[in-house]
């Protein structure tokens, strides 16, 4: 064996070792994400369970009254759960039709400058900080609701729903547009060649072909709406009432945010439990999202 050959072999071994080290570093960096998720989950479960035990799960989840600072405190979070569910559903009900048709228009009909204008507007809407949504909601939307419906205070569920509906538009539109633009043009050509009009083609061929992507867009919107705290805090009024369109309400998110700074003892523990409930909802939504995305992939194959 010549010396040269030996050298190259050593060189190769060294290279392999470097490869392995780099591989390991990347793996570690990747695991940081997993670590964070695990840490949050464990922390929430550990700190969220005790209050549920003390209060009683049924009492906590189904109790209709939240009075954490009263002499005889009540820790029922049903108002928050229902407000979050109603608020999110309302936002979806308003936002999805608008977002969906806007997406069809952008992806299939709009051309040139109009398309560019719409797309940049959607992009900018996505970049608006939630506190700004809240501010505009508070200063413009709330007084407007008060005048229009002749109620003593405009802040409440309706104002929250409208703000949330606007906030979820960009995610719904962007993801739907991507899904619609990925529909093979051959499908649309085939439909047009059969004598279908362009509009018939979009709704009978393009949309059904993109349906898993559009479903994912809706789920993403649900996730954004249910997790939003800042904007709704500014327009919801924040009293722990059972949900009603024109009354002050509190969401799961705002329930945690509004009391955390001065809470203590069981009250503080109960806030962790609320966060755990919220986390559970988000997990469900994530599972749904993965389901739709996976189905989309399978279909493409």
């Amino acid at each position, binding site marked *: 064996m010549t010396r040269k050959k030996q050298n190259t072999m050593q060189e190769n071994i060294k290279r392999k070792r470097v490869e392995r080290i780099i591989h390991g570093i990347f793996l570690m960096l990747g695991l940081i994400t997993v670590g964070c998720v695990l840490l949050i989950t464990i922390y929430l479960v550990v700190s969220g369970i005790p209050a549920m035990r003390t209060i009683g799960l049924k009492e906590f989840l189904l109790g209709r009254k939240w009075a954490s600072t009263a002499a005889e405190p009540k820790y029922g979070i049903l108002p928050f759960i229902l407000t979050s569910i109603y608020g999110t559903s309302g936002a979806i009900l308003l936002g999805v039709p608008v977002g969906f048709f806007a997406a069809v228009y952008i992806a299939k009909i709009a051309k040139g400058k109009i398309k560019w204008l719409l797309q940049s507007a959607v992009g900018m809407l996505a970049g608006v900080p939630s506190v700004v949504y809240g501010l505009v909601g508070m200063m413009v939307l709330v007084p407007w609701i008060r005048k229009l419906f002749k109620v003593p205070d405009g802040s409440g569920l309706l104002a929250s729903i409208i703000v949330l509906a606007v906030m979820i538009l960009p995610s719904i539109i962007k993801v739907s547009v991507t899904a619609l633009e990925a529909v093979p043009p051959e*499908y649309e050509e085939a439909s047009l*060649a*059969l004598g279908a009009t362009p509009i018939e083609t979009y709704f*009978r*061929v393009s949309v059904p072909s993109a349906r898993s992507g559009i479903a994912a867009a809706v789920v993403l919107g649900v996730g954004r709406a249910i997790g939003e705290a800042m904007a709704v805090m500014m327009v919801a009024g924040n009293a722990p009432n059972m949900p009603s369109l024109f009354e002050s309400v509190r969401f799961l998110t705002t329930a945690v945010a509004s009391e955390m700074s001065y809470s203590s003892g069981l009250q503080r523990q109960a806030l962790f439990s609320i966060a755990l409930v919220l986390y559970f909802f988000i997990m469900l939504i994530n599972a749904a999202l993965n389901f739709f995305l996976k189905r989309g992939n399978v279909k493409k194959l």
Partner: protein
Amino acid sequence: MNAEDKQKSDTIISTKDLNVWYDDFQALIDVTMDIPEKSITALIGPSGCGKSTFLRTLNRMNDLIESAKTTGSVLYRDQDIFHSSMEVSELRRHIGMVFQKPNPFPMSVYDNVAYGPRTHGTKSRAKLDDIVERSLRGAAIWDEVRDKLRQNALGLSGGQQQRLCIARALAVQPDVLLMDEPTSALDPISTTKIEELILQLKENYTIIIVTHNMQQALRISDGTAFFLLGDLVEYGSTDIIFSTPSDKRTEDYITGRFG
């Protein structure tokens, strides 16, 4: 003289001085051509010669290309297809199209065939069942898919998909079928099946087919048109074009000297 008269009376599509541009590039130059009814007309020529453009102009699918500009006239049953009173979707219903790559919708076999009739307003289940069966039989694929009507069409083989696409086109009862290299993506056995099918379809439909396969043109077509660089160089009965072409360029092409 007699034969010529007969051909004239049977003309279903006739183009006059048809020019198509894509931006500055002229893809068709003064194409004037009469296509007889219930016959198979093959369009041949090297890639980029304009034959596909010509085909796609006949049912105005070329409108989809934004840069395309068209002058001249195309008469379908003596109606100008570019006239403002012409409803494009109506035109395409009469002049159907089969594409190079089989392109069934990602739906069931049944829904694929029923797509056209449903779009045009047929709702009755019994009627649709009838149309689906008739169309699949017409495309010689019924026996292969009769038990798979509810399955996704994308699970069929390439040759089956293409015949399904033909069935889908037949379901709206067209008058003319435009075929853009319908067998170029298929294996020889599927190709033979489709060629046999095209010969059967001639009884009821006018077929215009773009093909790169000389043998195919010779085997199935009645008339052949040779395009080169946007020009219709020679058009006549297939026998004559392939045995005694009058233009040197046609002869060179069909004997394989270029293209």
